[in-house]
């Protein structure tokens, strides 16, 4: 079907491009300016001196350690969520009876539990388990709170596998474990990708759990590092924005090399 060009929508899209683009330009522009020209000319000027000193200041403050910690947290959280959510969803989709239904409803309800609301008892639990001020103190609760969405997305994907395929597997004498590994997992690849992307972003974005559960510099994640940076370098805006920019580097790398997977993964979070 041929379509006329939609000029109105095009104009609106350009306005949105400005809203997205101007702050991003200001971010990059400020991060490469010396502090003196920033206070003179403001964030959106055309820079006449470009410097990488701000990035050096950030690196010298131990920022790489924070980025590394965030990567560890994200990877471990995704691993735990996959290991737990895939079997749960399998049970929910294949199970019959009120118990399975109850499990699914529990996770649906869990979708709404704001992590803030339970942070006080959670702090107590993490403390008693001896995980206070370790990365585990961040990983475990983050994984738990990523489970509801993951179960929803995964069970949604697994429900679209037709019954005949299960029956064929059963006729061939495959055990439930074998069915899971050779039928269910390959068939729900896109749901699994969505779970990975979504969970990793949650872990990446996490702020409250790190703030409450960790204390020492060695266990600081990027988001918290930025928060501390505000009080340490509050007046050095270019260095602060250089830190903001650097905090996005790992995910930018992912975006450049796996844009399709990242975008498709996020799209999948909407269900069908």
């Amino acid at each position, binding site marked *: *079907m041929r379509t006329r060009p*939609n000029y109105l*929508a095009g104009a609106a*899209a350009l306005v*949105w*491009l400005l*809203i*997205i683009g101007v*702050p991003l330009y200001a971010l990059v522009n400020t991060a490469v300016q010396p502090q003196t020209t*920033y206070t003179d000319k*403001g*964030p*959106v000027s055309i820079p006449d001196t470009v410097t990488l000193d701000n990035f050096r200041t950030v690196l010298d403050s131990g920022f790489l350690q924070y980025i590394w910690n965030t990567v560890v947290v994200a990877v471990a959280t995704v691993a735990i969520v996959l290991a*737990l*959510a895939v*079997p*749960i969803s*399998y*049970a929910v989709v294949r199970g019959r009876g009120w*118990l*399975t239904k109850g499990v699914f409803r529990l*996770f*649906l*309800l869990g979708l*709404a*539990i*704001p992590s*803030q*609301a*339970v*942070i*006080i*008892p959670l702090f107590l*639990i993490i403390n008693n388990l001896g995980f206070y001020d370790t990365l585990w103190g961040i990983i475990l609760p983050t*994984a*738990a709170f990523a*489970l509801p969405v993951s*179960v*929803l997305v995964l069970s*949604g994907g697994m*429900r*679209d596998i037709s019954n005949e395929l299960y029956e064929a597997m059963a006729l061939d004498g495959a055990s439930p474990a074998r069915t899971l590994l050779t039928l269910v997992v390959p068939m729900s690849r896109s749901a699994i990708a969505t779970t990975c992307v979504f969970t990793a*972003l949650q872990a*990446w974005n996490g702020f*409250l759990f790190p703030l409450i559960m960790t204390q020492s510099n060695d266990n600081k994640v990027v*988001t918290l590092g*930025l*928060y501390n*940076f505000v009080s340490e370098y509050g007046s050095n*805006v270019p260095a*602060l*924005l250089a830190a903001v920019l650097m*905090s996005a580097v790992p995910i*930018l790398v992912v975006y450049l090399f796996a844009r399709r997977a990242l*975008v498709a993964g*996020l*799209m999948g979070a*909407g*269900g*069908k």
Partner: protein
Amino acid sequence: MAWALPGLLFFLVFAVVPMVGVLYLSFTHWDGLNAPQFTGTENWSRFFGDSQVWQSTLVTGALLIGNIVVQAPVSILLGVWAAGPQRNRAVLSALFFLPLLLSTAATAVMWRQLLDPNFGLPSKFDWLFGADPMGTQQGAIACLVLVTTWQFVPFHSLLYQGAARAIPHTLYQAAAIDGAGRVRQFVHITLPQLRNTMITSTIFMVVGGLTAFDIVLLLTNGGPGTDTAILPFSMYQTAFRTYDYGYASAIASFLLLLATAASVLLTKLSGYDKMTSTMEGL
């Protein structure tokens, strides 16, 4: 059923038990050091007479509504637009995605500087932002909505983009034959077909809005004064700044109640609880 057991246990320990725990703690006095003292309904009677709590609830509600009212239309239009097959749309969509690469903390830190009345954008574009955009309560709420929109519209529009692509083409062809123009097609085909996505996207916005703690801490720090101290922020201050964990638990329980009510309502609307495949033709 055994397959669900490890995950279920994990979820019970780190999500459900704390949920029960926070309800229990809301009936105690606890400073975090000594054992919690059971004080009956003391926290709750204080809660219902606390004007700060009601202000926090109102601000939370205002922020929530502001976020939905601004983000939903923009995301729907942008998502449907990006779903078109044109090449230039794909290029622009790749740019529109960029804010998602920044964490909420990074976004808030960046905007805090950009909105600075002396050195930020207001110093150059005061016709747009005014002298000090975050100086008043309305202004600060508007800034929170602006920054939330900037960061999360890319995500919500992706959801709509995916859903809009899945709408069967035959519907549009039939409508075109019947003489329906672009606007009528949008209103009568696209919007109804996006219903489920609207609900999902709204759930994300509601839960996100009720828990927008980091953005408030980093952008307005609850200010001016306590004008943007939303419920999670008040709870955090009460618990981890003044060490009144019992009273903070009462605020947290209230937050929990609000979130659960919202989610029950929305999942009822969405039909998620019916547990059936939504694949076309099944």
